[in-house]
């Protein structure tokens, strides 16, 4: 017998959750607006939420928004792609070879704690203020995430699968890599890639604050003239693009890992 109150059941139904989610959003915006009109927050430091649609239209019609998004996407795709590829490659090689592992172990221990943004100095020195510089900084952050995820995933492949490969004469390096190591470590590797997708956004904005064209630079410029509504617009667009890329990747992940019990 179901003794749960009806309201609590409703709060767990899809419709109930949607209504409550929307209500939470409305309450947040109401509180925000209240803080702005009552002068609770110092005047001029808090954007007016009701001006956001107008600001979005302005940013769009003045031709600033789209180039900024596209420029950021260039940094994002290159930085994410390079960082992911190199992190995966070096993680996989060092996890598979005792030689490579020993050779890089100290180096990795020294370099790994350095925050990606500390490399901005060298990004400017080597690449000037350019797309490549921003991509470089992003790639460093993404690299470590993927390197570490891949390394531990490959290291943690259960030895019983290698024993099976041996029992059935499938010991060739490439054969074992493709049929055992890679699929067995895929869940860990993909989880690392997904973390990297988020990590890349975080470093992206900071990397662009140094002056490379993109959403980070637009935010900085808008903040400089007190146009906080525009700042919020860029923040929301970052959130949107991240959600889109994460959702897309989650689909790919699900398809690649369809062999796992759900």
């Amino acid at each position, binding site marked *: 017998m179901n003794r749960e109150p009806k309201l609590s059941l409703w709060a767990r139904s899809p419709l109930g959750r949607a209504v409550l989610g929307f209500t939470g959003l409305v309450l947040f915006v109401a509180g925000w607006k209240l803080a702005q009109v009552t002068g609770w927050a110092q005047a001029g430091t808090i954007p007016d939420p009701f001006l956001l649609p107008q600001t979005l239209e302005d940013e769009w019609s003045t031709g600033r928004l789209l180039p900024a998004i596209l420029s950021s996407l260039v940094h994002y795709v290159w930085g994410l792609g390079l960082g992911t590829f190199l992190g995966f490659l070096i993680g996989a090689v060092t996890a598979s070879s005792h030689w490579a592992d020993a050779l890089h172990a100290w180096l990795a221990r020294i370099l790994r704690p350095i925050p990606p943004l500390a490399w901005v100095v060298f990004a400017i020195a080597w690449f000037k203020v350019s797309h490549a510089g921003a991509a470089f900084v992003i790639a460093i952050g993404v690299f470590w995430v993927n390197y570490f995820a891949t390394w531990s995933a490959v290291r943690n492949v259960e030895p*019983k699968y290698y024993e*099976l490969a*041996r029992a059935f*004469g499938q010991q060739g390096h490439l054969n074992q890599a493709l*049929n*055992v190591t890679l699929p067995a470590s895929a869940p860990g590797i993909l989880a690392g890639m997904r973390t990297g997708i988020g990590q890349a956004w975080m470093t992206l904005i900071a990397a662009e604050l140094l002056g490379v064209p993109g959403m980070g630079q637009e935010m900085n410029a808008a903040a400089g003239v007190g146009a906080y509504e525009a700042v919020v617009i860029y923040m929301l667009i970052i959130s949107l693009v991240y959600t889109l890329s994460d959702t897309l990747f989650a689909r790919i992940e699900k398809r690649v890992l369809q*062999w796992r019990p759900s």
Partner: protein
Amino acid sequence: MAPILNIDNLSFHYGNSAEPVFAGLNLRIEKGEFVAVVGGSGVGKSTLLKCVADLADSSAGSIFLDIPERRSCRRRATVFQDGRLLPWKRLKHNIAYGLKGLDLKREEREARIAEVLSLTRLSELADRWPHQLSGGQVQRAGIARALAVHPELLLMDEPFSAVDAITRQHLQDELLRIWEKTGAAVMFITHDIEEAVYLADRVVVLSGTPAHLALDQEVALPRPRGRNAEDLQQLAHAIAQEL
């Protein structure tokens, strides 16, 4: 008949231990013979099987396989206790796993897979993922994968110990049917003496520290055997005395 497996004076000890797990083991298996190896836990039954499967290195002694190398077969194949399917391959691809590298045409490969799928009654499930199979189906798949490489020696490491009692009886009968059909010799590791007596032509007992061959008992009961037949029970009881 010449034995296809000749284990001579075999010893095994782990790298860090001076005391061997087993020592001075001698065992022969004839072509097509079904031999069960029984013993308590820790006597090295599975280790012995791994030595024969070339998955572990013995410390002393020799293992000789008198099976010709043929390019379309493997000389021996192993069935593991946990079934050990690769979770990321569909059933039919798991069964095809050992065939890679053998000299088989595409049609021959497909025919092999179809043959062992039907032999183990898994044809309907060929496209399933391993997690969609029951414990008994996983074990049958492990057997099918081993049979697909047409081995002359089938090495089975407690293959039915993880399934429920009713499934176990079904699997035992299926194994006998398959064994009679394929004519492969079987080395079957188990801790269950009744299972050993029900299945095997010969039961050998490992016991002691270090373990040695305490008994090599022919099972001269006609097939098909009754599980509850008195002579079978008596023999099982006699063997149990040696453990």
